[in-house]
């Protein structure tokens, strides 16, 4: 009898695997939305289906993807981080200010610098972004207030800090960041992608593996799914929330640096709409705002959807010779439609 048991388990595993690859219909809702949007632009916009468009989409989506990874952790935890945009801004500003210090490249950022100074100039702001996230986590857990409020306060703090250290001036960033933001790796056939896309891919992959294959990742899901149940099972849910917000601060920092590199300098007007775009991306992918459900794969779909929308609308507005100022309005309208469509498809899949 005992010898039968392992074979029996393999049989169950086989059934599980067979039912696996297409999943639930609700898993497909974000794909359908993305496909619908691509088809729409392919039909309406001349020259949309070209490698160049794909490159533009990926390049624009890179920063968004990096920031969305951390936000996905936080949303799955059942929390939210409103400070990502300003933490990204602060990190980039800190990097720029440090880089223009006399001990580094000096004013204008043109002086000679050794590689380890550059490393320190990049690492220190990144560490500060991690600490900012950690701080909002500790305060959220300690005060038992919603992270919504705590990170709203942190958003203002980070914004204020960025204004204070930059004195509203423009700063240069290290050359390596510029290269990450703009230099391309050729992939053959005349197609090339910027380094930032590969950085984003690495962050996405790391996030995915952490969420799906580590204990911490599982605890993130369970903490968001039912915090009391996770606590009763011995999960230290406070630590999970703190770690989630710390990760989110850190990825926001990375995103801020990559964005500054892409724009080749730091100014206070960067990253203003990063927060809302990132939240929209994560939610477009189908990650629940109430925690427990979602994933990096979904976030990737969300980021692609968002960036296809952006790129496509730009092209469409130019082609139709509309006033450029109508873009935010259209973007909002289409985003609303996409979110509603997603919601309907997901619910239909559930019933």
């Amino acid at each position, binding site marked *: 009898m005992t010898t039968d*048991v392992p074979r029996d*388990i393999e049989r*169950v*595993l086989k*059934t*599980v695997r067979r*039912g696996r690859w297409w999943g639930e219909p609700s898993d497909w809702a974000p794909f359908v939305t993305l496909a619908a949007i691509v088809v729409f632009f392919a039909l309406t916009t001349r020259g949309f289906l070209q490698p160049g468009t794909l490159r533009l989409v990926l390049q624009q989506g890179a920063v968004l993807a990096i920031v969305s990874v951390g936000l996905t952790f936080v949303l799955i935890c059942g929390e939210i981080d409103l400070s990502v945009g300003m933490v990204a801004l602060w990190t980039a500003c800190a990097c720029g200010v440090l880089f223009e210090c006399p001990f580094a490249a000096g004013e204008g950022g043109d002086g000679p610098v050794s590689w380890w100074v550059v490393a320190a100039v990049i690492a220190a702001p990144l560490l500060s972004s991690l600490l900012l996230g950690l701080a909002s986590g500790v305060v959220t857990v300690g005060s038992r207030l919603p992270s919504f409020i705590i990170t709203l306060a942190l958003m203002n703090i980070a914004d204020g800090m960025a204004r204070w250290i930059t004195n509203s001036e423009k700063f240069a960033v290290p050359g390596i960041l510029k290269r990450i933001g703009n230099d391309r790796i050729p992939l053959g056939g005349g197609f090339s992608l910027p380094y930032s896309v590969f950085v984003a891919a690495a962050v996405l992959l790391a996030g995915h593996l952490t969420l*799906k*294959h*580590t*204990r911490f*990742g*599982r605890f993130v*899901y*369970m903490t968001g*799914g*039912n915090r*009391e*149940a*996770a*606590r*009763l*099972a*011995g*999960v*230290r849910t406070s630590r999970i929330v703190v770690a989630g917000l710390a990760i989110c601060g850190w990825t926001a920092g990375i995103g801020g640096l990559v964005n500054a590199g892409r724009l080749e300098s730091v100014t206070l007007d960067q990253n203003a709409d990063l927060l809302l775009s990132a939240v929209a991306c994560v939610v477009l992918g189908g990650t629940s705002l109430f925690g*427990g*459900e979602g994933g990096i794969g979904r976030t990737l779909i969300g980021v692609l959807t968002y960036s296809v929308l952006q790129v496509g609308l730009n092209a469409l507005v130019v082609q139709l010779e509309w006033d450029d100022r109508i873009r935010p309005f259209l973007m909002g309208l289409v985003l609303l439609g996409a979110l509603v469509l997603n919601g309907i498809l997901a619910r239909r899949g559930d019933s």
Partner: protein
Amino acid sequence: MLLECRGISKRFGGSAALDGVDFELPAGSAHGLVGSNGAGKSTLMRILAGALPSFEGRVVIDGRPADLSSPRAASRHGIAMVHQELSGIGSLSVAENLFLGRQPVDRFGRVRWGLMRATAAAYLAEMGIDIDVRRRLDSCPLVLRQMVEIARGIHSGARILILDEPTSALSPPETRGLFGLLRELRRRGVAMVYISHFIEDVLDICDRVTVLRDGRRVGTFDAGAMTKHSIVHAMLGRNVEDEEAGYERAMELPERSAGPTVLDARGLTREPFFREISLQVAAGECVGLYGFVGAGHQELAHALAGALRPRTGQVRLEDRSVPLGDTHAAVRRGLVLVAADRAATLVRSAPIFMNVTLAHLRSAVGAWITRAKEIRAALPVLDRVGCVPREPTRPVRSLSGGNQQKVVLAKWLLGPIRALVMDEPTRGMDVGAKQEVLKLVRELRDQGAGVLIASTEPELLLAHCDRILVMRRGTIVREFAGESVDRGQLLRSA
């Protein structure tokens, strides 16, 4: 005939939850509905309550076809349902919950708070409950929440009252109070459908009993002509040896076991639930903690396992102190809790296997988690607790209450269990699942774990415990050990 159902069928996916069931209810009657978990009781009642609009068959009320397309439509026909799961709103007061959606208002539309509170207090007083109705519902113990639920159903002005497992959280005096009230309602012409696993209760309050099995009606019987045994027989289609049959006679509690003390609590206090509690549980011993609802024994169970932090006191497990209110430390050391409220102990949207591996991921699965590894780890324990169906990827919320509790047990079985603390572990479970769970608990005890069961059911404790402590208003008032005790003695001492 007030209510007539003809040929009611309902399919979920491919399987029939109900298959051509007939059912009728004259005014002023009480009709019991019994069956194992999954027999279709809840499906039938949800259809009547308008929660499942798409079904086959015909429902006639007062001789006219009834529209049961929504809960609102059902309530227009005078159907009210008291759910097994608590559906009150935790952040509102007890009084507001009692009058949810029908607060008394004056002619300007302002809520008449004074009247509402006074009426709410009067309703609860009828059931023998005396609390401040301004308290938030979620600050009340489970039993009170259930009483509020029942009171809301009773006073909704319904002609047909559906009660789904109303007494599962109630202690005997409260059950008696409720039954008195139900009889009064019947005299006023209210008909009721009473669903319960407590067959004595069904036979006590109902005049007819319908037995369902696998979505079909086995038969409808006069309650007077049936016994608990014959009903169970009809439910299961086989004779079960009823372990709790002997409780009316005195039970002989065995001499105290000589095993070393596993769980040792001293001076635990958490106002207003319990104060200065000291108790010991030995290895291989099952200790019962009996009390009426609100006696504090349920909160004490939670506190022992770290789920609730006592203000003062000490808990020691195998001679080492366990930090108070720290479930992480407790679980690591093998001090685990099986609570009554499955909604608080399971992540219901997550698959079964993830719930099973949650507490012992590292030891059972390792540092790198894959689905296959997890299922391999989870299946043996799921089989050991007898969880059906064997589809570990199904979400826990799709399981019946009994199977959900088995998942909780399976979760703990993956790691060490030195002391097992249970709070109403078999609440709302059918006879078969109950026996399976308790058999497993006995096995764990025989393997040397210390077991503590807090319950308001004397039968459960008398049938399964080696020693029984009785709690009243937050203190232990009596201990039964190595002597003979019956249900009456237990009830009288609490």
